[in-house]
């Protein structure tokens, strides 16, 4: 491992008032690999992504993208950095005043100066990759179902072929077949296009399919990280409880674990 990681996080903290969401996150994402972050609801997974993107300012710590520091960077550096990223927001975040095709083509038209005609063509291609097509291109986001919006949002995130793609719960709200189509698409982005991917998911089947590495976040820290093959022999009771979806265990009942280890 001589190669510099694509993203390098050290001791990243972020609080909202008295709520300490991130309490020292350390994470390395190797170039061209697919990392999946798992962890309970409200543990700060989305906040972690937003700190890397600079949408939220980390309170302290260091985040390096290709060796360049993001925390406290100037607006210009951050804007330059943003060109490398594509992001699928957990809530979709589609522009509701623009038609679907324009949503997908947005980054091409405004970021890469592609002509509208060309961009529309590329947008429809991306829509086909996520299981939709020309028929919905001229509709507006509000006219689509939740799962369809999610897929449009995914098409938008990958439309500019970014180097680094963040997927915040890409398969939530999709039927199992469509979820698998999306899994394949994410794998393809990493394998064929050489992108570095960071995915948040609660869907363990999806995690096993798309991940090279898995990291688990709990109480504001990364408590375990390793190759996906080691997921079942992680040696961490937290990971065990999470991946098996058990209601009782150290995550839900920290006291019992303390007693056991005492």
């Amino acid at each position, binding site marked *: 491992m001589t190669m510099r990681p694509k993203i390098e996080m050290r001791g990243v903290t972020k609080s909202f008032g008295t709520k300490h969401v991130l309490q020292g996150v350390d994470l390395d994402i190797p170039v061209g690999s697919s990392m999946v972050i798992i962890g309970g609801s409200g543990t700060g997974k989305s906040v972690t992504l*937003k700190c890397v*993107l*600079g*949408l939220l300012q980390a309170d302290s710590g260091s985040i390096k993208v290709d060796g360049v520091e993001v925390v406290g960077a100037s607006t210009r550096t951050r*804007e330059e950095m*943003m*060109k490398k*990223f*594509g*992001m699928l*927001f957990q*809530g979709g*975040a*589609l*522009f*509701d005043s623009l038609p679907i095709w324009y949503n997908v083509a*947005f*980054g091409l038209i*405004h*970021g890469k100066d592609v002509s509208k005609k060309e961009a529309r063509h590329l947008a429809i291609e991306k829509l086909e990759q996520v299981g939709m097509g020309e028929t919905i291109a001229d509709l507006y986001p509000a006219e689509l179902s939740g799962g369809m919006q999610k897929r449009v949002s995914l098409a*938008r995130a990958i439309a*500019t072929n970014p180097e680094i793609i963040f997927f915040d719960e890409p398969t939530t709200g999709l039927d199992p077949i469509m979820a698998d189509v999306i899994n394949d698409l994410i794998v393809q982005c990493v394998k064929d296009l050489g992108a570095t991917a960071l995915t948040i998911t609660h869907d363990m089947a999806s995690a096993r399919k798309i991940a090279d590495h898995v990291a688990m976040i709990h109480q504001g820290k990364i408590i375990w990280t390793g190759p996906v093959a080691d997921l079942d022999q992680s040696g961490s009771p937290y990971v065990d409880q999470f991946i098996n979806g058990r209601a009782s265990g150290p995550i839900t009942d920290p006291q019992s674990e303390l007693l056991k280890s005492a």
Partner: protein
Amino acid sequence: MTMSSAIKILEQKVPLLKNMCQAIGHSILNVVQALGGITLFALDTIRHCLTPPIFLRHILRQFIDIGYYSLPVVGMTALFTGMVLALQSYTGFSRFNAESAIASVVVLSITRELSPVLAGLMVAGRVGASIAAEIGTMRVTEQIDALKTLSVNPMKYLVVPRVVAGAIMLPILVLIGDIIGVYGGYIVSTHVLGFSSGSYLYQTWQVIEEMDVVSGLVKAGVFGFLVTLMGCYHGYNSGRGAQGVGTATTNAVVTASILILIFNYLLTQVFFS
């Protein structure tokens, strides 16, 4: 009352006093912070107005949204204000037999004060509120974050077109309002009060000076800037959820209205003293 009991009472009052000071200090700090935030936002907006890329199509669209669609409400306001001015000044001036003064009262109050201020307030209610609601919703649904990840600066994409359109369209609206307002006074004077139309128009033309109209239009430009800026500022910094957007909308209209009245006074002082 002994000394010790007086001290005791004082001691009881101290926490109350402290709380009060704390509350006052807190609200002063809040106001200062808000003013600072608004000033920085305004400077940032102006900076982005002057540097490329400029979203020209968006500016044109805002011309229509802010200017054209405000025409009915601004026109109605001016018309009835001109009419009521003529009526009121007749009841006032008729006692002194100075009916010719009506034309001057109407045209001067309309062009200098009423047309810009009332148009500003009407547009604050119509446009300021809708800007705050639209941008606030985009903030809450992460659309503003999405713009950033797609390498488009939301200040340039959302704020600049609205503020530019506001500052340009409001003077045009006010100029139209001036004409309609004077016409309203004319209708009442000739049809209700029975003056001759020729002498009314002559009076109007005699009394009006370039400065009256120009000062009103400058005011309108400033008000247009303020209204759209407040809409954008409160929307951009909207709190979370539907409630956050609601508060942003209210604040946009209230602060815009107050700023219009304050700046109206300041500009009047600059122009006419």
